[in-house]
C-alpha cells in the first residue's frame, strides 16, 4: 500500500510490493494515470496488457526506473467508468476501494478493449441494455394506463366491501356540509329544505310513502334520508351514506309519480352500489397513478390533468349506466313503470347540448334512454302513488313568503 505522500512522479521503490516478475514479451504497454483508491495521490504508471490481465507498473516510461508492479487487475474484473471523450477510465468490479486507471493512449486503450470482453467495446451491450430499458419504460407506462382505464374500477369494486359502512357514513356527513352550502346557492338557509312547513307535511308524507315502497324492494346498506330542496334545476343527487337530495325543479317536471320514482331509484342505485366510496377510491387511485407514477416531467402536469379528467368522466359514465340499470330493476320489483325514467330523461335533457363527449360524466342521453327502453317489462305497472298523494307531493315545496325570499336574495 502506498502512503499519501503525494509525490507521485518518482515512486519510492521501497513502498511498492515489488516482485520482480519478468515482463511479458511483446505485450502492449503504455503510459497511464493510476489512483490506488486509498489516497488521491496521482501515480504516473506504465500499464502492460498481459494475457490474463493488466499489470500496473511504477515508473513514468516503460523500461525506465524499477518496473515495480503496483497492482494487477484481471480482465474479468475490469469495469469502464464514465469519463470524458478520449479517456478510458477503468475501475474494478465489486471493489469498495475506488481505484482508477486512466488511459489516454488510444493504442493501449484499444489493446485493453480487445482483451477484456466485459469492457463492451463500441458500447454495443450498453446500447442493447438501454433499448431494453426504453422498451420496458414504455411498456410500464402503457400498462399503468391500461391499469387506470380497466384495473382501477375493478379494484375499487373489490375494495368497497372491505370499507366499513361507518366510514362511508362519516364521509357522507363530512361532504354533506359542503354540498348543502353549494346547493343552497340562493342562501335560503332554513327555508332551503321542503316538507316541514305546515302546508308541506302532506307532501312529505307522500314522499315517505314513495321512498318506503322503493326501499322495501331494495336491499340497501344504509337507511335512506331523502330530502327535497328548493332548486329550480330538474336534478337529484346521492351522497355517500344514503343521503339523497331531490330538487324541487325535478318534481315540477315529473308528470307521473313513477317518473319521479324512476329518478329516485337511480339515486338509490348509487347508494346500493356505494358509489360515493367508489369515487373516492377511484380518485385516490388516479392521483397515485397519474401524479406519482406517471407524468413527472416538465410539461407533464397538463398530461396528468387531461388524463385524470378524461378517465374520471369515463368512470362516472360507467357508474351512471349501472345506476340506470339498477333503477329499471328496482322499479320493476316495486311494481312501478321501469320506462318512466326514460320518459322524464327525454323531457329534461334530450335537447340540451352536452359539450365534449370525452368529458361527459353521464352517458349520452339518447343511449341512456335506449338502454332503459330496451328492457322488456313483464306485467302491467301500477302507479306507485295514488292521485291524491301525487298531488300532495307536487306541493311539497310551498311558495316561500315574499318577504322571506326578498330578504334571502340579498345576503
Amino acid at each position, binding site marked *: 500500500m502506498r502512503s*499519501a*505522500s*503525494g509525490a*507521485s512522479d518518482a515512486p519510492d521503490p521501497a513502498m511498492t510490493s515489488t516482485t520482480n516478475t519478468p515482463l511479458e514479451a511483446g505485450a502492449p504497454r503504455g*503510459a497511464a*494515470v493510476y*489512483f*490506488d*483508491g*486509498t*489516497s*488521491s*495521490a*496521482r501515480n504516473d504508471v506504465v500499464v502492460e496488457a498481459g494475457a490474463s490481465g493488466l499489470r500496473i507498473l511504477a515508473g513514468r516510461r516503460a523500461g525506465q526506473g524499477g518496473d515495480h508492479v503496483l497492482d494487477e487487475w484481471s480482465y474479468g474484473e475490469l469495469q469502464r*467508468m*464514465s*469519463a*470524458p*471523450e478520449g*479517456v478510458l*477510465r477503468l475501475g474494478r468490479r465489486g471493489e*469498495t*476501494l*475506488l*481505484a*482508477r486507471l*486512466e488511459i489516454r493512449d488510444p493504442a493501449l486503450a484499444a489493446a485493453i478493449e480487445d482483451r477484456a470482453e466485459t469492457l463492451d467495446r463500441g458500447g454495443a451491450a450498453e446500447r442493447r441494455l*438501454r433499448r431494453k*430499458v*426504453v422498451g420496458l*419504460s*414504455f411498456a*410500464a*407506462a402503457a400498462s*399503468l*394506463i391500461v391499469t387506470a382505464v380497466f384495473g382501477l374500477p375493478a379494484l375499487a369494486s373489490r375494495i368497497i366491501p372491505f370499507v366499513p359502512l361507518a*366510514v362511508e357514513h*362519516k*364521509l357522507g356527513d*363530512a361532504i354533506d356540509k359542503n354540498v348543502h352550502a353549494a346547493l343552497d346557492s340562493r342562501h335560503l338557509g332554513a327555508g332551503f329544505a321542503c316538507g316541514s312547513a305546515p302546508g308541506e307535511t302532506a307532501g312529505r308524507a307522500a314522499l315517505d310513502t314513495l321512498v318506503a315502497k322503493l326501499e322495501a324492494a331494495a336491499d340497501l346498506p344504509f337507511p335512506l334520508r331523502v330530502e327535497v330542496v328548493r332548486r329550480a334545476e330538474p336534478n337529484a343527487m346521492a351522497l355517500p351514506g344514503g343521503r339523497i337530495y331531490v330538487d324541487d325543479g325535478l318534481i315540477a317536471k315529473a308528470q307521473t309519480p313513477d317518473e319521479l320514482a324512476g329518478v329516485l331509484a337511480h339515486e338509490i342505485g348509487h347508494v346500493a352500489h356505494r358509489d360515493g366510496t367508489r369515487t373516492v377510491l377511484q380518485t*385516490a387511485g388516479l392521483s*397515485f397513478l397519474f401524479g*406519482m*407514477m*406517471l*407524468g*413527472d*416531467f*416538465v*410539461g*407533464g402536469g*397538463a*398530461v396528468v390533468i*387531461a388524463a385524470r379528467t*378524461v378517465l374520471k368522466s369515463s368512470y362516472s359514465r360507467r357508474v351512471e349506466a349501472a345506476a340506470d340499470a339498477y333503477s329499471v330493476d328496482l322499479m320493476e320489483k316495486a311494481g312501478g313503470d321501469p320506462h318512466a325514467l326514460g320518459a322524464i330523461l327525454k323531457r329534461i335533457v334530450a335537447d340540451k347540448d352536452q359539450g*365534449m*363527449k*370525452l368529458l361527459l360524466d353521464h352517458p349520452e342521453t339518447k343511449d341512456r334512454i335506449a338502454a332503459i327502453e330496451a328492457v322488456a317489462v313483464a306485467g302491467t305497472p301500477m302507479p306507485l302513488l295514488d292521485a291524491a298523494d301525487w298531488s300532495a307531493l307536487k306541493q311539497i315545496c310551498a311558495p316561500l313568503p315574499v318577504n322571506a325570499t326578498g330578504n334571502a336574495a*340579498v345576503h
Partner: protein
Amino acid sequence: MIAPTAGAVTFLGREAAYWRLRIKGAGLLMLTLGIYRFWFATDVRRYLWSSTEIGGETLEYTGLATELLGGFLLAIAIVGPLYTTIALAALALGTTGMAIAGIGVLVLVLLSQFALYRARRYRLTRTVFRGVRFDQHGSAWRYAIYALPWWMLAIATLGLAYPWAQASLQRFKMHHTSYGDLQGSFAGSGSALFLRGLPIWLLVVGPIIFAFVALGRMVDWNALNGMMADDENNPLALLAGSAGINVFFLAAAALGASVIAAVLLYPLFAGIMLRWWISGLRFGTVTVQSHLSTAQVYRIYLRFVLFVLPFLLVVAGAGAVCAILSSALVGSSRDSMAAEFFAGAITLAIYVVIVLGASTIYQVVVTFAMWRHGAQSAELFGADALGCVRASGAPDSALGEGLADALGVGGI
C-alpha cells in the same frame, strides 16, 4: 505530456453532444410519460461530472439509474400512506382532523427539506475525484429543522433575509461535506450577498411596496368603511369612485415596473449567486475564487431568448398545420369520441412539445453554459492539497433522491 496546472478548472463539455443528450432524453421522457427520467438524469450527471476537470483530473459520477428507481419506489411506499393518512384524518375527524392535517403538511415540508439534504448526500457520495469520493454526514432531520425557520423568515421578510438564510444553510451543508479526509466549509457571507442584492431587491420589490403605501394614502378608508357597512358589496367600484382611475393606473404601473425589473435583472441575480457560492467553497486549505463576469451571464440569457423565440414560432406553425390537417381528416366524423380524443391528444402534444422544448433549450443554453462559465472562471488556491487526500466514507442510498422526486421538490 504537459503537466496540468494544479489550480486550473476547465470544462470539457461540448454543446452539440449535450444537445443530442437532452433532445433524445426529452423525447423519451414524453413517450414513457416520465418513467425514463432516472436513466436520463443519470446520463446527464455522468456527462456533466466527467466534463468538469480540476487540476487535470475530471470528476466521475458513479450513480446508477436503477438506484434512483429503487429510491423512488421506496419513497412512494412512504409518501403514499402519509398522503392517505392526512387526507383521511382531515375528512373523518372534523376539527381535530384539520389539526392533524395541519401537522401532516408541516411533516411534508420537513420531509422535503430532509429529502433535499439526503439527495445531496447521494450525489456527493457518488462523486469520485482522483479515486476518492466526496461525502456528506450529519442528520438530515437536523438540517430540515434548521432550514425551516430560515425559509419562513426569508418569505416573511419578502426576501430580505434570503442572503443570510442562504449563507447559513450553505455553511451547514459544507460543514458536513468532505472530500476524503479533507473537511469542507463555506466562507460566503450573508451580509456581502445582501449588499450585492439589495439594489435588485429595491428595483423588483420596491415598486410593489411603494404602490401599497401610496394606495393606503389615496383611498378614503373612512368612506370605504362606511359604504361597506351600508351593505354595498363592490369595494372595487368604490375604490374607483373614491380615488379615481389613478389607483388602477398606479397599481398596474407598479406591477409592470416590478415585472420588467425582475426580467431584466434576473441574469444579474443569477451571476451574483453563482459567483458568491463558488467563491465561498472551501476544502481544507483549498480556496476558490470565481471570476465569472456579469456580461457573460447576460450573453447567456440573451442567447436563450434568441433560441426560444424561433422555436416557439416553429412549433406554433407546426401546431396550426396539425390542427388544419386533423380537422380535415376527421371532419366528417366530428361527433365521435375518437375524433375528440384525436384532437385533444394533438393539442396536448403540442403543449408538451412547447414546454418540454423550452425547458430543454433552457437546460442547454443556460444551465449548461452557466456550469461551463462557472467552472472556467473559477480559480483554485492551494490545490496541491487535493493530491494527498485519504479516502473515507461509503455510498449512501438513493432514498433522498426518491423522496425529493415523489414530493416534487427534487431536481432529478
